């Protein structure tokens, strides 16, 4: 191969970063175009994320902090309980129930939450569309979405699956941006901490889940974005190890080869995978869902087995009390009481299937950026850069530790830090200089 190594380094990182970026971009656009629509005087909605305390602009700061802390606490406890429940169900092999539950929640999110977002888009831009067409389109959109996310036996292009994963993330994140400001911040911090504990602490639900899944050679029962290396003829090297300064220098020689998944059912590539003896790395070959077969697989050298974890959290939203603006969406809302959605956070798997990023990470990154978008564009850029660099750090750590890592903590910490630094320090400075037309 004659190409320079610049072309081969970082493919996987970009493979994860670009969908995250797209997700954030779309959430920001959505927030921008819809904030003018949702009237500021509207009733604050009560969801699972603000069960205890409804923030009102007139409350004092200490009241807000206290209330939002309580909200965050309750929400995290809720998530933890639901996650434990899922782990228990998974432990006792209620796999079918879990699968159907996830199908239902995906259907619900795409259909009802997505539907009401589409509805507000239709209203905002005065798109001429009648109700029947709208419902038919929405129904088709939803069914295709559910099929493509949990397709078994149907060969569905990976791109479609990825698109729907990003869409799910966008829809949930757009809902979360409706939360009041203080609650959003404390919630994000609490979730980051929870993520850290759940993935890393012994006995953490996500850790148990990953270990269970890997001991069963099973797919994680969670919504996970899989960044599959782009299919290409050229064997590419997975070279994340390099980025961390040759930590894994001993093992780079092994060429990363690609197999069709069909081949990998043969003994030889199974052996190849068995060589990667990282305890956590699940050997997924035997039980892979059929549609994986037509995906390209890549057996990788040990150096490249950075992996991402797949975790699972449950985001519970009680939609019942959402105030809706139109009869149509009120109708949609009737089905809302079961507003649950499983977003999954972090976890790692092996490179042979590319990096995996839980959908929950998509959601909460986008929530942070969406919240920043309500202040100013400058904070959006700062938060975006902070989150992406946090994600980059996490990926690099992943190649060092080679175990499931939480993707939220670093990114959220950096994101929040940069948000407030930008808002407090940078904005007056930049606005002051550039309104005088001075730059440097």
């Amino acid at each position, binding site marked *: *191969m*004659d190409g*320079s*190594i*610049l*072309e*081969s*380094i*970082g*493919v996987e*990182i*970009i493979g994860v*970063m670009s969908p995250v970026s797209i997700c954030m971009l779309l959430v920001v656009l959505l927030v921008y175009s819809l904030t003018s629509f949702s009237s500021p005087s509207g009733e604050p909605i009560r969801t699972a994320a603000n069960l205890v305390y409804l923030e009102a602009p007139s409350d004092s700061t200490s009241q807000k902090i206290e209330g939002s802390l309580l909200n965050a606490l309750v929400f995290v406890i809720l998530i933890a309980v639901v996650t434990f429940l899922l782990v228990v169900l998974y432990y006792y092999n209620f796999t079918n129930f879990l699968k159907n539950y996830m199908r239902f929640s995906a259907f619900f999110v795409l259909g009802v939450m997505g539907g009401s977002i589409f509805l507000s888009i239709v209203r905002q831009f005065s798109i001429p569309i009648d109700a029947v067409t709208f419902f038919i389109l929405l129904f088709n959109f939803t069914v295709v979405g559910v099929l493509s996310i949990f397709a078994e036996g149907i060969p569905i292009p990976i791109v479609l699956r990825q698109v729907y994963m990003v869409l799910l993330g966008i829809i949930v994140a757009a809902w979360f941006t409706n939360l009041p400001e203080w609650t959003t911040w404390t919630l994000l911090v609490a979730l980051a901490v929870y993520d850290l504990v759940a993935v890393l602490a012994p006995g953490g639900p996500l850790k148990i889940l990953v270990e269970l899944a890997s001991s069963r050679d099973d797919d994680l029962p969670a919504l996970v974005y899989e960044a599959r290396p782009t299919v290409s003829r050229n064997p590419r*090297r997975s*070279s994340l190890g*390099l980025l961390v*300064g*040759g930590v894994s*220098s001993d093992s*780079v*020689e092994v060429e990363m080869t690609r197999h069709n998944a069909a081949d990998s059912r043969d003994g030889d590539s199974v052996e190849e995978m068995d060589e990667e003896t990282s305890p956590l790395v699940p050997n997924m070959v035997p039980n892979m869902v059929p549609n994986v077969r037509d995906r390209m697989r890549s057996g990788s050298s040990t150096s490249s087995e950075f992996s991402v974890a797949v975790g699972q959290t449950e985001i519970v939203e009680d939609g019942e009390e959402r105030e809706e603006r139109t009869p149509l969406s009120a109708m949609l809302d009737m089905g809302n009481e079961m507003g649950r959605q499983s977003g999954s956070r972090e976890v790692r798997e092996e490179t042979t299937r590319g990096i995996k990023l839980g959908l929950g990470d998509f959601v909460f990154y986008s929530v942070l950026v969406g919240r920043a978008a309500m202040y*100013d*564009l*400058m904070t959006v*850029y*700062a938060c975006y*850069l*902070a989150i*992406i*660099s946090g994600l*980059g750090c996490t990926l690099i750590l992943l190649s060092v530790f080679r175990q499931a890592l939480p993707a939220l903590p670093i990114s959220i910490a950096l994101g929040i830090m*940069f948000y407030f*630094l*930008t808002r407090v*320090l*940078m904005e*007056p*400075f*930049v*606005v*002051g*200089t*550039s*309104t*005088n*037309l*001075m*730059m*440097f």
Partner: protein
Amino acid sequence: MTLAAGIGYVLLTLGPSLALFVTVISTKPFLILILLSSTLVWLISLIVLSGFWKVFLPIKTTTWWPYAILILTSVVFQEGLRLVLWKGYKKMEDMLDAFADRVAKPRLYLTDKMQIALAGGLGHGVAHAVFFCLSLLTPSFGPGTFYVDKCSYAPFFLVSAIISLAFVTIHTFSMVIAFNGYAQGNKSDQLIVPAIHLIAGTLTIVNLASSGCIVGIPLLYIVALSTLAYCGKMVWKRLTETQIRLTHQNQ
């Protein structure tokens, strides 16, 4: 209409960078990472600077010297940062070369090194455009526009987009010049970059004067274009030199 104008301002500032990004950077994932990290570095430098200047802002006087000090400190700080970047890049280059040796691929070509420098510069440029121009554009998407008194010939957004374009050009290509200068130990190349940056920054002080932008912006563009020309000349020279050396070796 205003939406179109807003998009127009964005494209005016970032159009050339976008073209560079699509044609050069986006095909090579590693360059995208360089671009992002360089943007982040620039953002951090801006935050540090604003933290420093927070004490003195807002500047109430209409005199020019506080602004001159502000620009001087900023330029000095950012040029210092460029040295740090170069050190980091040097380490990374060694790592990349070692890695290339291990996987039996060719080491970094000269063009690769230049592209890395370009990506780094583009990161600085884009960060500049984003924070000084794009982030103020939000009102321009709404109804109406905004004029500043001292430069009332064009809307504020248009003027700042034009100025930003010049700075994006300067930042992008001065990084190529600087890295090349460091690599070759060429003193004049090393010194010309801070000089360009300082001159360009100083020229914006002209905008403080009433209708100073009539004079300041053309001068700024002369600086930007000469940076571009200098960089182009330098790259051409280096490329032809290595070409000649390679053909000699082959003979």
